């Protein structure tokens, strides 16, 4: 059903939002004058989700959050791409912009034709201000997403993550473990979400956090492991009625391998595996990305 589409897009959106943190390596900021870009691609095919509500299957009650199959042979085939650009205004200040592109398809028995939607999503601007440089790197994060995307509410296939104003505030803390070629980082943030006019719903605010550790495995090979969590509140609709079945929660574990093609360019591939959640798709997202930076001296 269409709301599984929304659920999935929540996941994509959450990923998109979290990727802002990835763009400039957690709490660290870019050197002044540096431009950092990333083109990333995500894909997922799944027929399972973390249920939003109680179900009854074969005589058993499934509670919200239970991992189960979509009803009526539902299946997603989803692709998303994110183009990110971050600029080091000062050594301690980055600004960035991110533009997503979604191509999604959902099929189940209750549709006489697949639901599909393709297009550019909402533009997101971000800022990162480094507050403390050492030994702990501590930065304040901020982001604003504007409803600029071209998605329309076609038969329910609208990403609820898209279509409304969001304001993120957060903190990021990182530490290098040099001389070991390792780092650790943690983010914590809160997303204020305005009502989504297109679907007549206030999707509800949410907390997000992540913890990651990475390091160099070989001269050109790096690796990162990450835990992410998103915890949303109930949506409000129809004059402010709380809808607890729209509560969104997800926990992911990710593993990403980076291959440094040269000093400025890196190729990364990874997997993002769901650990648990509620009102979210379950399964593995596959990730591929290309990053490059340019310094002012170039």
């Amino acid at each position, binding site marked *: *059903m*269409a*709301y*599984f589409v*929304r659920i999935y897009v929540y996941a994509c959106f959450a990923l998109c939002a979290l990727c802002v943190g990835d763009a400039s390596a957690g709490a660290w900021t870019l050197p002044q004058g540096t431009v950092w870009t990333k083109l990333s691609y995500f894909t997922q095919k799944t027929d399972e989700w973390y249920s*939003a*509500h*109680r*179900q*009854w*299957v*074969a*005589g058993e*009650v499934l509670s919200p959050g239970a991992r189960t*199959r979509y*009803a*009526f*042979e539902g299946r997603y085939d989803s692709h998303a791409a994110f183009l990110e650009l971050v600029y080091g205004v000062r050594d301690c200040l980055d600004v960035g912009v991110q533009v997503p592109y979604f191509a999604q398809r959902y099929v189940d*028995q*209750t*549709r*006489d*034709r697949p639901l599909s939607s393709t297009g550019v999503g909402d533009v997101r601007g971000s800022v990162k201000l480094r507050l403390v440089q050492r030994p702990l790197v501590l930065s304040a994060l901020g982001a604003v997403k504007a409803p600029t995307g071209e998605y*329309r*509410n*076609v*038969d*329910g296939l*609208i990403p609820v993550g898209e279509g409304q104003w969001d304001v993120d505030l957060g903190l990021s803390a990182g530490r290098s473990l040099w001389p070991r070629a390792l780092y650790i980082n943690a983010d914590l943030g809160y997303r204020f979400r305005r009502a989504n006019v297109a*679907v*007549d*719903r206030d999707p509800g605010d949410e907390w997000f956090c992540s913890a990651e550790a990475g390091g160099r495995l070989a001269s050109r090979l790096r690796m990162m492991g990450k835990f992410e969590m998103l915890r949303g509140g109930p*949506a409000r*609709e*129809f*004059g402010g*009625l*709380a*809808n*607890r*079945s*729209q509560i969104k929660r997800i926990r992911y574990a990710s593993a990403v391998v980076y291959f440094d093609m040269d000093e400025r360019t890196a190729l990364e591939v990874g997997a993002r595996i769901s650990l648990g959640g509620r009102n979210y798709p379950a399964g593995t997202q596959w990730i591929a990305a290309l990053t490059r930076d340019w310094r002012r001296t170039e």
Partner: protein
Amino acid sequence: MLYISLIALLAWAVPAEAGGYDNPGFLTSHLVSGGPPKDGIPALTNPNFVDPERIAYLREDDLVMGLVFDGDVRAYPHNIGWWNEIINDQFTDRSVAVTLCPLTGTGLVFDATGADGMQIEFGVSGLLINSNLVMYDRRDGSTLYPQMIYTAINGGDLGAQLELLPVIETTWGMWKKMYPNTTVVEAGTGWERYAGERPVYTERSYENYPYISARLGDYRTSNDYLIFLPSTADIDPRFEIKDMVLGLCLGKDTKAYPFNAMPDGAVINDVIDAQNIAVVYAAESHTAIAYFSELGGRVLNFYAVEPEGNLPVEFVDVETGSRWNMLGSAIEGPLAGQQLKQVPSYNSMWFAWAAYWPDTNVWSGEGILDVPVLVDTAVEETPLRPQTFALGQNFPNPFNPETRIHYQLPADGFVRLVVYNSGGQVVRRLVDGVRRSGLHIARWNGLDEAGQAAASGTYIYRLEMPGEGLREIRSMSLVR
């Protein structure tokens, strides 16, 4: 007419004792997203109606909801409801909203004529309570009406209740037998609201039932799954979750008539909230229709007879011997030409009915007269043919204000039928004299010998034929 009433009226349809639904906040806390967002399931508005031969998406055994107003006969197939759930429609003198929730199997029709005579449109909110469709009023875009209780649960019209209209739910083949002049919804019409926004469903869309899981089966019949578990009450184990029932709400009483329990061709005489009704059931066409059995101030009792017409159920009233068809029309006898008034009611999957009405009464076999009888007096009725000695369970039971007691006599003779209180004292002598052999009905109006109202409680009634040495005893409950 859609009429707006406040909390006091809410108590009529959603009694507090049935589950606390007089507290709207209670119900709004049970809202869940059903999948598509608001209007994600596209309600139709004013579709075209065409002759049956012009449509190809219906099979003879597909279900339809049928309406007749001023000779205008229209069929609203479930096939349309599977995909669109609400059809906003207009007749000459009124507007209606024909609604079907595929997840609870409930088809209800509401008057949608505004106070100004304009059509009120309803849309699909995308929300559910107890797995059941929640509609919204498109005038303000936010007032929610759970289909099965059709009462506003939020906003300025909180407690307002829609007027439930009688509808006949039956197979397409049976509906055409009932009303050969019927018209039916033309596929692909009624979409003007969504022009350019979404694909229009075609005849092909409406041909196949969509809620089928290869793993778990047809949603309508598989007891292995519910996509949305009811939340206002636990699953009621008295029946399988997907068993269909005919549900009636009259006054503060609710009663379910399980399809699986009713004999094919049954005509059930019953009393709900002091209103006499008759339920007619035809199994093959999945048709259950309830009628008020009081006509011109006279209560009629019915028994089924072998049908002579083309409809599967016919019945005769005990009082006049008039013959009726399953549409509630008297076709022979002194009452020929009379029409029984249909009771607004609807079919539902058991789990949903029991979730909304956890204290519901359930029909358990009472009220079927399987042999013809003739009325003798206002108190006691005399048989046509002999039977064995038997004392039936009164119906309704518990009762208020009146109940009926069947008994059979093997021979003519002296008979006593006496009601006693729990202390063994005589409360009322219902029969005390010579009666012919056969089936009789005695009525007790809850008054004692002095004409005073008897108190609530359990009463014993005893039938005896002293000359034959026969005696039988049963009990009943009077609820004040």
